[in-house]
């Protein structure tokens, strides 16, 4: 029998064999992985070949202004699933929710992983970064901004998991009291993959990791940094209720005849036409369903500023706010960049307070 290497030299094939997983099981794993990554089934042999030889990458996971929903989404599965097989095949060197170490020991683990894998590790971030006051969110006395800047330096790539890390999310919602910004608004010199969603579909998170493991590159991204393979089509275009939209058949309330017949939820505020995500095909809870299938409009949680999109139950009249605002700065250094972003945030905060609107119970009953 061949010797199986241990530690960071392990390949995914080694990990699977150590767990007593047969080649046939591995093929099943590759078939469901190809399906998860929306790759054609003809790619299954290529995935099998690449994954078997893929080395365990070091991953540092930083959690900032977040609710832990993204981690919950990924780790909730209790059984042997694609998600946790992929998750087991990475070397998760720092994740303050999951790791046993705390305090100085935890921070030392992060520093050691950064040093040992400088230039090669993957940095995963969930949560937004407050620029209003460094004290709004700290870990081990280190501000989120400082920790991000320090850890991003040696990262091969950054994965912004969840809408908060990708676009600011709920903390960024008007009136944005902490001056929350996304990772992409601070870091400009590293490849950033945005995996938005509140939370993202777990297989979409692992799909991005799998892509990196399989091909050693980041996937093709859309204009706001999302992998096209998962975010390339709108919920509306892939929705099984789309034919009702085309025929002009809409549910007007949540309990009318149209709702009972499963007609289109556009008039009830569905954000499917302006939302790009894999919910309609990948679905949730291991393919059980997705919100529209349960009779609720899409909230548009994978879109920038979805929280300020004009009310969850107000029908779309125009796309949600354009988010292509970027902070332009020169190579004057990270500190200068931080100041520049902070100044912009102040301006945004003032305008956000002015335009802040609330959804009332009357809106829900309309």
């Amino acid at each position, binding site marked *: 029998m061949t010797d199986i290497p241990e530690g960071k030299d392990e390949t995914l094939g080694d990990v699977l064999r150590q767990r007593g997983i047969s*080649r046939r099981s591995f093929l*099943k794993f590759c*078939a469901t992985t190809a399906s998860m990554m929306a790759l054609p089934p003809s790619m299954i042999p290529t995935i099998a070949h690449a994954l078997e030889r893929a080395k365990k990458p070091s991953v540092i996971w930083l959690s900032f202004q977040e609710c832990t929903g993204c981690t919950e989404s990924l780790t909730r599965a209790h059984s042997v699933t694609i998600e946790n097989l992929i998750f087991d095949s990475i070397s998760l060197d720092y994740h303050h929710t999951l790791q046993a170490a705390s305090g100085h020991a935890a921070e030392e683990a992060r520093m050691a992983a950064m040093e040992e894998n400088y230039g090669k590790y993957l940095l995963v971030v969930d949560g937004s970064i407050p620029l209003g006051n460094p004290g709004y969110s700290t870990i081990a006395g280190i501000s989120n901004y400082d920790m991000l800047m320090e850890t991003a330096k040696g990262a091969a790539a950054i994965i912004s998991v969840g809408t908060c890390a990708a676009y600011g999310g709920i903390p960024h919602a008007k009136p944005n009291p902490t001056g929350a910004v996304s990772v992409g608004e601070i870091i400009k010199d590293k490849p950033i993959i945005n995996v938005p969603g509140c939370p993202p579909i777990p297989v979409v998170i692992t799909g991005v990791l799998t892509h990196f493991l399989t091909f050693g590159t980041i996937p093709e991204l859309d204009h706001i940094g999302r992998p096209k393979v998962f975010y390339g089509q709108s919920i509306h275009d892939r*929705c099984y209720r789309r034919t009702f939209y085309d025929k002009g058949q809409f549910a007007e309330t949540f309990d009318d005849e149209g709702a009972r017949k*499963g007609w289109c939820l556009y008039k009830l505020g569905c954000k499917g036409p302006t939302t790009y995500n894999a919910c309609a*095909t990948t679905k949730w809870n*291991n393919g059980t369903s997705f919100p529209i299938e*349960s009779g609720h409009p899409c909230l548009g949680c994978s879109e920038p500023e979805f929280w300020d999109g004009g009310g969850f139950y107000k029908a779309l009249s125009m796309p949600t706010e354009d988010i292509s605002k970027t902070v332009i700065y020169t190579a004057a250094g990270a500190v200068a960049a931080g100041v520049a972003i902070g100044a912009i945030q102040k301006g945004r905060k003032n305008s956000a307070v002015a335009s802040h609107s609330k959804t009332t119970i009357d809106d829900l009953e309309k």
Partner: protein
Amino acid sequence: MTTHSVQFNIQIGDDLTWNVAPLLHEVKHALDNLIKNNETTIIDLRSIPLAPGEEDKILNILGQGEIKAQLYALGQSEIIETQYAGVWIVSHYNDENEIMGRFIEITSMPDILCSQTEDMIEARNHLSESLKEGQNIHESSVEKSA
């Protein structure tokens, strides 16, 4: 045939997405291709927008043929030849019986049913070790005499 889909309280009309008939035509063309060129086609049902009930409709139309195999690897898998020879439904579940993927394979035999070379090498090594130690032979003879 056992399916694990969740039932919804939604009235299902005919051809909600109009994807049922085109999909079945695709299966027919794939079967042509298998017969003429011996080329296998795999259709991932997860990649196609289907309304609640439509997947069951497709499965019911294809029906069940002569072979139904069960595989136990990372949870159960069910491999069924439909009433149309050469058209197979391969369904993968995890160990909580949740569906992980479902494919229509147009082939003479789905790959996953074949014994895999790596597993056969592993099996030969195990058998060889057992024979060296004499365990299996001894245990079998003890069982027989008991």
